Each structure stands twice: as C-alpha cells, then as structure tokens.
C-alpha cells in the first residue's frame, strides 16, 4: 500500500472514528454515573437517525437547495436527531433503569434490562418504520470540497468531522466548566457523598442520559447521511463504540474520544490490509490487546462508587 493510499484510508478512518467517538461518549457518561453498560444506547443512536429522516421527510429539501438552505436543513436534521435521541434516553432512564436503582437491583439485572430495552426499541422501530433500509434525503450536493495532501474530502465527510469535533469540544467544556458538569463528575466519583453535598442525584443522572442521548442522536443523523437508515443500524456501531469507550478508559470522556478515533482508524485500515470481511475483527483484536497490557484502558478508567 503506497503512502498516498495509506493517507486516503487514514482520512476515512478519522471520519468514521469521529462518529464512534461521539457515540462512545454516550456510553462512557452513563457508565461513569451509574456503572452501567447502557446497551440500549445503540437504539438511541438509531432513533436519532430516524428522527433526522422524519424531519427531513416532513420538510423536504427538494432537488437543489441553496447553500444557506442546505445549512438550515442539516441543522434541522441534527436538531431533530438530537431531540429524538434525548427523548429516548430520558425515557429509558425513567422506565428501565430508575425503578431498578430504587430497589437496589444487582448489576446483572441492569444489564439484562438494557439488552431487553435494546431489543424492544429496535423491533418497535422496525415495526413502525418498516424493515427495509431507507436513504437519508439529500440536503446538499455531495461534491468534493478540497484535497488534503492528496486525499479527497467531500461535503459529507467534512460535515461528520466538523459536527463531531464541535460536539466533543462542547461536551468537554460543559463537563469541566458548568455546574451540571461538576455535578456529573461528582456523582461519578462518589454518588452518596455527592448527595450529601447537595447534588440532586436523580436529576444529574437524568440529565446525563439526556446529554448522552443528544450526542448519540445527532451522531445517528450524521451516520445516516453517511450510510443509510435501517432499524438495526445501531447494533454494530454500538458495540464498536462501546469497545472504543473501554479502550480509552471507561468513565473517561477524553478516553472515549481517543478510543473512538483509534478504533475507527484501525477498522478502516483493516480493509485494504486484510480484506473487507475482517474489519470488525481488527477493532476487537485491538480491544483485547489494549486490555491485556493496560487493563484499565489507555487513559485510565474513572469510576467511583455506585449510585
């Protein structure tokens, strides 16, 4: 593989990795506050994509929208995706996880509930929206924008990269500078003591889910633009993103971003080197390798006592 080709694949990998990073943040946030693997996050992602699809079907972009209108449509898609994701995540927390927390259920039960919620949601989506794949309506003409050291970048890829970077920076700022952010960090470290310090644990957890949901939903819309929207589209990006969160250090938000990027690049580079059918194997081999040598993930885990 020549250097030029390597660079091509690297760019593609970074684009894919940025989506995985945004989804991984959702997993990591929830794990930090609840020590729970939220398997249903992949469905939050999927419903966000459907949200974007529905909003762009109702307000159809038409054949060739102007540049300003395109921006508007994309913003609409992102907002609708984020909204659907947030509502789903909030509903999940309220219906599936809060009652279990109230009764002090063992961890395994949370996990099984999460898997059950995931099954329910994607089958419901399959029933409501049909089981065939749907293309996301084109809000802009996807042409090549510029060439970066020999690798072409088109509008979709730039959009994905840009939106993901903005979301990650925004989240980082929020977690480190705002009151809600310090609440989240407090609950992650030690929920009981945080409660004693005046943090409303239930509200913080709820809002954590909502934030994760907004990010996941918007990522779903972006991913749907990149590929297509189908009721089971959440499964594979979901487990890859969770693996990314673990690779970077579970509970650690910057770790999730790093892990997402890494796994996206590894997955894309596996294709020319080993063949298209081995792409997920590459990601999981990296996961096992990292965990063998650094069991708490690359940037180290950040978990405290359970809520």
């Amino acid at each position, binding site marked *: 593989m020549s250097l030029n080709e390597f660079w091509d694949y690297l760019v593609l990998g970074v684009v894919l990795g940025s989506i995985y990073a945004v989804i991984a943040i959702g997993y990591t946030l929830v794990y930090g506050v609840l020590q729970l693997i939220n398997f249903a996050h992949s469905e939050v992602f999927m419903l966000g994509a459907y949200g974007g699809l529905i909003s762009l079907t109702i307000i159809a972009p038409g054949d060739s929208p102007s540049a300003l209108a395109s921006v508007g449509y994309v913003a609409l898609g992102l907002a609708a995706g984020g909204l659907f994701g947030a509502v789903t995540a909030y509903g999940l927390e309220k219906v599936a996880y809060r009652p279990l927390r109230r009764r002090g259920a063992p961890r395994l039960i949370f*996990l099984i509930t999460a898997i059950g919620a995931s099954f329910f949601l994607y089958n419901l989506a399959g029933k409501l929206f*049909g089981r065939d794949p*749907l293309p996301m309506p084109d809000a802009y003409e996807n042409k090549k924008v510029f060439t970066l050291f020999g690798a072409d970048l088109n509008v979709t890829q730039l959009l994905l990269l840009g939106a993901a970077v903005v979301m990650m920076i925004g989240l980082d700022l929020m977690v480190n500078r705002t009151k809600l952010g310090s609440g989240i960090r407090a609950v992650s470290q030690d929920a009981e003591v945080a409660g004693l310090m005046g943090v409303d644990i239930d509200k913080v957890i709820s809002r954590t889910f909502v934030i994760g949901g907004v990010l996941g939903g918007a990522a779903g819309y972006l991913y749907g633009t990149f590929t297509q929207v189908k009721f089971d589209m959440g499964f594979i990006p979901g487990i890859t993103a969770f693996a990314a969160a673990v690779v970077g250090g579970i509970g650690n938000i910057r770790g999730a971003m790093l892990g997402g990027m890494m796994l996206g690049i590894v997955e894309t580079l596996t294709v020319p080197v080993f063949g298209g059918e081995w792409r997920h194997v590459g990601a999981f081999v990296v996961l096992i390798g990292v965990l063998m040598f650094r069991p708490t993930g690359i940037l180290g885990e950040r978990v405290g006592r359970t809520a």
Partner: protein
Amino acid sequence: MSADVSVKDPAARAARLRHVAWYQQPRMKRLGAMLALGVVLTMMVGEQGNTRDIFYSLETSFTGVNLWVCVGLAVAIWAVREFAGTSVSKVAGSAVAAGRALPVDRVRTMLRTQPKLKWVLAVAGLLLALFAPYNLTGYWQTVLVDQVATYALLAIGLNVVIGWAGLLDLGFVAFFAVGAYSAAFWTGALPVDPPVVLNNFLVIPVAVLTCLIAGVLLGAPTLRLRGDYLAIVTLGFHEIVYIVAKNADGFTGGSAGARQIPKFSAFGYEWSLERMPYWYLLVTVIVVLIIVFVRLEHSRVGRAWTAIREDEVAAAPTVWTRCGSS
C-alpha cells in the same frame, strides 16, 4: 455574607417547598405512566410500517380504534387499582386463602416434608416430555427439537457461567459455534479433513475438549479484568469467532458452512431426520447434563464458583479463581 438569615414567615416558605402540585401526586404520576403504556401498546399492535410511507403505521395506529381500546384499557386498570384497589386485593387475598385450603397447598407442604415425592414429580415430568410431543403438529415438533432443546442446553451451560460463577460472559454463544464446528470437523464435513473420522457420539467429548481449549484461550487475556471489561471482551471474542467462521472459507466453509453432516449412529441404529427419535436423544442428553450439573453445584468446584460470584477479591486467596468455568 451576613449571618442574618431571618425569613419572613418561615413556616409558609417551608410549606411552599414541601408543596406538591396536583400533577406531581403519585396517583397522577401513575396515570401518566399508564397512559404512556397505552400509547406504546397501540404502536405495538398497530400495522406493520412500510418504507414507502414512513408515517403509515403511526397514522393508522393513532387514528383508529386501537388507540382508544389500548388507552381505555390502561386507564381502566389504573382506575381499578386506585379506587377499588383494596377491595380487589381483598378478593384476591381470599381467593388465595381459599386456594391454600385446596390440595395444591397440601401438595406443596408434602413436597417439603417428603423429598421422595420430588422424584415422582420429576419422573412424571420426564414422561410428559417424552410422550406429549406426539400430540403436536410436525411444525411444533420441529420447533421443539430445533429450538427448545437447543436453547435448553445452552441455558444450562449459561447458568453455570453467569449464574453460578457470576462472570458476565456475553460471548458465551461463541462456544456453541466452536463446539459445532469441531463436531463438523471430526465427522469430516468441513473442507479440511480430520486425521481420523469419528462417530458422532465420540465427537462429543472431543468437542468438549476443544471448547475447553477455546475457553482457556479466552480466559488467559481476561484473567485480570473485572466484570464489565469481561463483558465487552467476551462480546468481542464472540464477534471474532463469528467473523472468522464466516470468512475463513478454506477451513470453515464460509457462510455455506458444513452441510451433510453424518447423522448420529450407534450400534447400527441411525438417527434420520425423523423428529421424535432425535427428541429422545436430546432429552436424554439434557437429563444427563442436569444430573451432572446438580451434583457439580454442591461439589468443591461448585462451591468455588459460588465464592467467586459472591466476592472475587475475597475468594482469590482461598480458591483457584476461574479455573474451568468455561
């Protein structure tokens, strides 16, 4: 900041803080939950959506009779529970008390005091399992053999890993695949020939051995990992096994897999595609496994598993952790 914390009329302030709006009352919250449930139920029993019109299912669900029926049912259940709750539970309580007088409860006490009765029930259950399927249609017999028995076997195995040892193994099914492929290999159904072709029954211990090796291979890198890391690594392992099985064409036959595996045969009798003999074979295997595992649960290894499940860290010095649990 002054220390003067005088507040005009502290009682009223406190009362306002304690005030719960009418819609926040538990009763109304329950009503809200039931309404949401009714709506979800409507969507669930509605028409199958199609991709030509993504609003089709939603439209038909919410403009039809279904919505009123489901929401009405939900509200009715809420109303009964809220307003007639005590009287209904009284009725139910008396029914249960009446039931206690019935032989059902006497049987239960008998079971507790006379353990031999359990054996009678077990044998009765076994006979039912062996002879009841004759009354079912062919389709349900196939379901019994294909799905029920297979899932029962898998569940028994999963019970050991997740139930007794408390290890969050999400990739357990990978061993199902490993066992199946090794059975195919040793009976000569894969593209690669085995050194010696074995009878199906002899393949079973060999397949168990292969799974043991696979389990050790899986366990080695994950020995130091805690619960949730174990979950994702086993999930990754399961994906790897799936993808390797699907793609290693030369060895595993790719997505076509192994066809025409020789049927079970022993002492001249060959199991064909007939369902009932196969069902008997499977029931025998399940019964043997259950007996083996029940004995195992109370053995030293079983107690070690229980110790690990309760607290790994405490168990470590006293038990060889994780040996042979897969």
